[in-house]
């Protein structure tokens, strides 16, 4: 039983109170709804419920089911399946195409970052200046980012056509080359072509991210640094440099993570060829699923999980710090 003083404050013990001063508040039986409302945690769960439900239905369940399927010898359309533990994962380690797939994903993701970063930084610095139609140019910067990848990939497919490439035509016309460039028919050229398209598509993200950081720096700081006699490089390193320091890092992490889930660009341009030499996780998994081997296809996709988890943890740490 809880006792209250005249001001309504709870008293520690009955013995400390004189009987004449005691105010006894009759115990009120609280209803479920009142208790529910009073408890913050209940309300929190209520608000969380829709999100959690969506997470469970559309992310946790498929993820769990994917793990289960990857440990079976299941084929789409065939009811019979056996649980084979990590056999699919083990077999993939011996699969030369999968080995190429892992290598390609890193080349495609990590190898393109320096170019995206350099070009994005350059573009951001230029577009941070005030000049005529600068806002229009900033909007143009976003074009490669907002054009659907499938469409831009088709444009690159035409540019990289082995027989009728405008790039080859121009270079031939200038006398630089003697015949068509084998853009997508040679494994190294094909990877380079994919990286070029990936860089083109990724530069705006770097550019806009860095530009946003640059624009947060007040002009008068730059002016003060200039008055102090700092040259352009010193001004950049001392004023916007520290402010935007983490922006390229975060953009880089995103840029490494996205290729793991990429599909369209590689599928449209090479379908993983020639001779399976340009597959990334998404396209190889799709090709494997194509002949209904859903167990192996799931295992290919799930190989990304530990790598992505590490990257995601690093990314989250930097995002929080920012």
């Amino acid at each position, binding site marked *: 039983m809880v006792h209250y003083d005249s001001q309504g404050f709870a008293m520690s013990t009955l013995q400390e109170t004189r009987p004449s001063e005691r105010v006894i508040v009759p115990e009120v039986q609280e209803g479920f709804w009142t208790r529910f409302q009073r408890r913050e945690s209940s309300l929190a769960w209520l608000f969380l419920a829709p999100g959690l439900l969506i997470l469970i239905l559309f992310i946790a369940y498929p993820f769990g089911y994917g793990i289960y399927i990857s440990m079976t010898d299941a084929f789409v*359309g065939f009811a019979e399946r056996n649980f084979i533990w990590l056999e699919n994962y083990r077999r993939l380690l011996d699969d030369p195409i999968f080995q190429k797939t892992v290598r390609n994903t890193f080349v495609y993701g990590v190898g393109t970052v320096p170019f995206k970063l350099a070009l994005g930084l350059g573009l951001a610095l230029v577009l941070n200046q005030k000049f005529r139609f600068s806002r229009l140019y900033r909007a143009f910067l976003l074009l490669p980012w907002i054009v659907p990848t499938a469409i831009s990939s088709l444009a690159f497919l035409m540019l990289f056509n082995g*027989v*009728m490439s405008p790039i080859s035509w121009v270079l031939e016309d200038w006398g630089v080359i003697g015949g068509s460039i084998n853009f997508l*028919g040679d494994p190294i050229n094909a990877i380079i072509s994919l990286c070029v398209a990936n860089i083109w598509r990724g530069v705006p993200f770097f550019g806009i991210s860095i530009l946003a950081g640059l624009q947060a720096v007040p002009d008068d700081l730059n002016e003060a640094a200039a008055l102090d006699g700092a040259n352009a490089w010193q001004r950049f390193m001392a004023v916007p440099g520290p402010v935007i320091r983490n922006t390229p890092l975060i953009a880089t992490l995103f840029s490494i993570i996205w290729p793991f889930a990429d599909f369209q660009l590689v599928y449209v341009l090479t*379908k993983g060829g020639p*001779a399976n030499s340009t597959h990334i996780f998404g396209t190889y998994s799709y090709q494997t699923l194509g002949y209904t081997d859903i167990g192996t296809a799931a295992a290919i996709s799930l190989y990304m999980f530990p790598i992505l988890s590490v990257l995601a943890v690093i990314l989250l740490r930097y995002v929080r710090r920012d």
Partner: protein
Amino acid sequence: MTEDRSATLISEAKAMRYSRRTVMKRASAMGLSAAALGSVLSATGHAVSAAPNRAPALLQGGSLNMLISTAFVPAAQDFFQEQATTWGEDNSVDVTVDFINWPDLQPRTTSAVQAGAGPDIVELWDTIPYLFSENLVPLPDLAAQAAEVQGGFYDWVVNTAAIDGEWRSIPHGTSSAAIAYRKSYFEQAGVENPEENFPATWEELFEVGRVLKEEVGKPLGQALGQSLGDPPGFCYPYMWSYGSMEVEEDGTTVAFDTDLFREGLEMFVQAWPEAFDETGLGWDDSTNNSAYLSDQISATQNGSSIYLAALDEEGENYNPELAEDTFHAPLPSGPEGQFASLGSRSMGILDYSPNQDEAMAFLEWWFSAEPFQAWLEVFEGYIIPPGPAFIELPVFVEDPKLAPYTDVVNFGRNKGYAGPANLRAAQASSQYVVVNTFAEAVQSGDVGAAIEQGAQMLERIYNR
């Protein structure tokens, strides 16, 4: 007529002690109806399966969606769409057709089967019915009717579209392969009267190809990318003509890595930079058409679509001079003979479909003589029919330039040969194992390693 064929099959089955499956397979090939098959089965002491007797379906207000591969003869795709729409209007069924690129057809079907939702009718390429054998509605009656219309099905059709003799999709033939070439360029390369003296062997073709590339400036063109049509259309026959096979007749013993094939592939790899357009490694089924039609190459292995496109007055590639200069030759032979990869496409109904009545009604109509013939004629000879009934149509015999495409039926083999065109063959084909062996050998120059890698992959597939 039917009685005669039934009697022939009964005596054949008794003499050869055919199994029930073989009887069914032969009956399909001979075009016997379900009723006739029933009498043959009972006369030979086999159980007769209870064929479902479907009541006429009430189609009013129903719907039907079909997933069909795009056609390299655009008019034929439009015509099929028109046929479907007209049939839908006549039967008050809302019909939609999705045409998708060849390489996407199978993955889309796989997704639909996994999801248990999607198209009602799917087009299946050779060997693919095996992949979905548990998900396709059995169609014995429809197959028997279609076989009657087609005058029976060719063996290459039965071998690739039927699943162990059972029909779960109805075959409608396929495009075939030959070498489309520019007569004038071959003459410039020293081949007198190419129509009569076209190189008979691969080796001879590569020799002429060297002259074509070096002196005429118009190399041979061959697609070696990951695509369903032309790359396998070249690689499988070449492999067979050099004595290599995916597996032995038992369907499990891999017979890919042979000395003769190593020699043959070595010859091809050496010829590649000297006789071929080297960008072919990245070509798909359409790139060689573009290369030929834009006068970049002198010859390429293809269906008749290049020639038909050049003849099409309304098409963007209309080029009467090029059409006049274009001729076709059968695929050359190797030391082990002359071959072509031949398997029938077919139409199947997925078992999750709530519109099976509509689907069956459509297929029953479409595979009847009149609409099927009309569709075949719009293709102008590009698609060869699954049986002999239509092979004498003017579209196949009037233009002698197209004769090599129908001759292919005489030396066609199924994927997976010498084994059956089964699930494993379908998997090997979907993984492009044979095609990628060629591409890998050309890229690396290491024929032995490419063949060994191909053999290992086949081993994994066929002995899993």
